[in-house]
């Protein structure tokens, strides 16, 4: 028996069959782990994108809600089925001597909400979006209670309410969509739509709010 033959038949270490089976099992495990990791990374990316969208949606709605709480008058001008301009007039909350106006502008084509000429939350949409990722503003409306309302009970209820109530109760609806287009073979397009909502009773509209007099 020559040296090579002795080495091949040595009993320390693995046999060829054992090594082959181990390699096959490891390959299957690594492949499985890779698939799971990639799927989980995809899931995390989607989750992060939705959180970013939630943050922006809630920011915009909260900002408008805050202004409406102090408002004495609201002017809404619609454009292409969506609110494009909202002017919120309110009394200077500190000195109560001057009326001020916050001007909201929604540019659905550029996916931008502006307040007094400045982009509301300039960090949205994020600049490091991946290939195929995009956000779009689907709806930004401020409508009286009952109008443009998907809730049937509330729509019916609005017919029983007084004009005074309807003039002062406003629903903010802000709808965003996140798109993730398929880039690689085997992927599928994915999108999620969320609506952010708040209702505000503009109490100052039914109060005598004048310069120097507030509730």
């Amino acid at each position: 028996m020559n040296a090579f033959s002795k080495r091949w038949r040595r009993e320390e270490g693995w046999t060829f069959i054992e090594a082959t089976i181990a390699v096959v099992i490891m390959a299957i495990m690594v492949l499985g782990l890779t698939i799971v990791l990639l799927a989980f990374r995809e899931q995390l990316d989607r989750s992060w994108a939705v959180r970013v969208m939630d943050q922006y949606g809630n920011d915009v709605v909260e900002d408008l809600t805050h202004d409406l709480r102090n408002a004495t008058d609201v002017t809404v001008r619609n454009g292409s089925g969506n609110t494009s301009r909202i002017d919120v007039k309110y009394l200077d909350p500190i000195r109560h001597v001057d009326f001020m106006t916050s001007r909201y502008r929604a540019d659905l084509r550029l996916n931008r909400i502006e307040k007094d000429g400045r982009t509301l939350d300039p960090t949205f949409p994020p600049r490091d979006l991946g290939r195929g990722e995009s956000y779009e503003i689907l709806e930004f409306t401020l409508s009286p209670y009952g109008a443009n309302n998907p809730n049937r009970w509330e729509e019916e209820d609005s017919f029983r309410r007084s004009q005074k109530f309807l003039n002062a109760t406003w629903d903010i609806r802000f709808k965003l969509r996140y798109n993730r287009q398929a880039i690689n073979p085997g992927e599928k397009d994915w999108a999620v739509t969320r609506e952010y909502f708040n209702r505000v009773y503009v109490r100052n509209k039914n109060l005598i709010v004048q310069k120097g007099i507030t509730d």
Partner: protein
Amino acid sequence: MRTKRRWGEDVGSIDFIQIVVGLLIVGIASVGTFQALQFGNDQLNFQMRYRSATSIARSYIEYWQGRIHTDTPNAREMEGNLRQNVAQTLLDKGDPDDPADDVYCYVRYGKITPKEEVLLGKDKQGRTLISHILINVQVTWWEPDQNPESDPKEIKFTGAMVPAAL
């Protein structure tokens, strides 16, 4: 000629059994890790629904503040509807193409009660009793993976309004 090896005998390298056990340990650890990540993701979704429920509750309080201010709710309405069946309200629309994963909630309100409490100023005894109205709103819902027999998730929201300021 191949001699029979005894179990556990050290031959200077890892054997087939050891690598299978090693892979099993890695597999089990991976499952644990992924479950932890999944749990974190579920918690984020729960927080999102919680925030949405808070928004619904707050909007409902605004509704009642407007009602009390402008209309006069009748006695039956002032009793609340905590024990009544109410229509469902959409809380979270998951996949837009799959209505099965939508989460709905129930919005109820408690008895609307006028109260008198010392809020500010003074009266004869050195106090000022300010009448105010308390509005309590309750939002309940079941999480997607929650047992429907178990207690629902719930938030309670209380709003006050002062008639004297109307």
